[in-house]
């Protein structure tokens, strides 16, 4: 039998039941899959129907491990929060899938921004999608410009976030309702932003792009984002260099000053005591 196939010649895609249907992971507009069943072709058939096999494999393959996310178990009466920073203005999309299990358990999800305001909320989540645009929650001034203008107060770099601030969002899941015999549930959370978040189906229709062009456009967007991030990291590392060099020169200066102070004070002590004894007419010297 071909790899991974059972006697009937059927592979169950992940999360699917015995018939290969009702798979746990569903398609989203940001993935491309629609069909979730994967069929094996036994060795003998493969050579004859390679094309057919490839087509089917494509259809299935586009889904199964498509959404790269975090999978974990939620226990009853617990809370789990995740946070991430997204560059301002970027669109953030994602979805959450709660697998079925024993007992009744209700898992609620809420997305909050830094100020604590609720951006998205859903109770009793089974499979939900969310989408929002990252906006700065009314921060006073942009500290990044202070760094660049050069007039920075050196004692103000307390917090990394102050200088290179990206709005931070928190994704919280809680399971406070449900009955007592409920067991843990597997939850899958996926969050994408930037190039991963664009809907290429729509774009293809709008601009009448062929599939290859869409693919390459997507790759281009990914790489553009990547290059922006590289630039960002490069600037941050420049700040690191400045800090390190400043510390380096400070160590030298402060040690020198320290030595000078010690010598001066020692000399002053001796002079003072000499005068003191002279005044008291104690000719210890």
């Amino acid at each position: 039998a071909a790899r991974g196939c059972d006697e009937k010649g059927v592979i169950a895609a992940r999360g699917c039941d015995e018939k290969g249907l009702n798979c746990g992971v569903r398609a989203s507009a940001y993935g491309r899959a629609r069909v979730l069943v994967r069929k094996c072709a036994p060795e003998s058939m493969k050579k004859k129907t390679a094309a057919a096999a490839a087509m089917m494999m494509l259809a299935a393959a586009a889904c199964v491990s498509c959404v790269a996310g975090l999978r974990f178990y939620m226990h009853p009466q617990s809370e789990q929060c995740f946070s991430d920073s997204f560059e301002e203005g970027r669109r953030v999309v994602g979805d959450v899938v709660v697998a079925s299990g024993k007992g009744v358990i209700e898992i609620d999800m809420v997305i909050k921004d830094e100020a604590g305001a609720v951006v998205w909320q859903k109770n009793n989540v089974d499979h939900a999608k969310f989408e929002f645009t990252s906006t700065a929650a009314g921060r006073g001034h942009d500290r990044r410009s202070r760094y660049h203008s050069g007039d920075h107060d050196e004692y103000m770099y307390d917090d990394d976030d102050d200088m290179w601030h990206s709005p931070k969002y928190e994704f919280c899941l809680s399971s406070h309702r449900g009955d007592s015999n409920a067991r843990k549930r597997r939850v899958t959370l996926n969050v994408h932003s930037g190039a991963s978040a664009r809907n290429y189906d729509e774009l293809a229709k709008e601009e009448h792009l062929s599939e290859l062009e869409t693919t390459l456009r997507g790759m281009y967007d990914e790489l553009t984002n990547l290059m922006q991030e590289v630039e960002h990291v490069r600037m941050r590392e420049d700040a690191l260099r400045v800090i390190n060099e400043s510390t380096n020169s400070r160590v030298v200066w402060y040690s020198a000053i320290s030595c000078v102070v010690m010598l001066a004070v020692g000399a002053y002590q001796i002079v003072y005591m000499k005068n003191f004894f002279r005044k008291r007419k104690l000719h210890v010297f």
Partner: protein
Amino acid sequence: AAAVAVALLLAVWSCAARVASGLSFELTAGKELCFHEITHKGNKVLAFFDVVSWGYGAYVYVKVRGPGSKVIKDFDAESEGRVEFTAEADGEYSFCFSNPYTATEVSFWVNIENDFGLADVIKEEHVNDMVYSVERLNSLVSAAKIDLSSFKAREARHRKTAESNRRRVTFWAAIECALIVIVAGAQIYRIRKLFENKRSI
């Protein structure tokens, strides 16, 4: 055949490039949090974690386990780590984080190569070299994103260390000078007192 190739490419890209950014989570002291991934034999798995909190106690214990609870990699009190392996068997792989003493914030990212039997199909179909090249380009872009994320996290932590260093140097140098002056003053004062009420020696 061309249509197949292109569709294949499309499917591969749409998956390989769809990489979620590293989410950070708060790990409470003493509790263990595990993430699970199911994959097939032969898939490459890449994961990295980085402790966002800084300071004393900012580390985690991580255990990477394969199917049958076989330990693949073990991190003891590390503040960052990276594990890359090829899945040896089908099944569930888990990444468990714990810190017995302090609450820490950890950022974690995992990527699993998709399993399409792509190599087989390509050989059989004699697919165009360009398709294969673009597919490999995709994996490289994903890998680049992963490495960049890990680099960003490390850089943030190193900068915190450097800033803390500078603050400490300044503070303790000031304390040192102040102490020298105070101790000198105290010495003089004490010696004066010694001679105050005594008759000459």
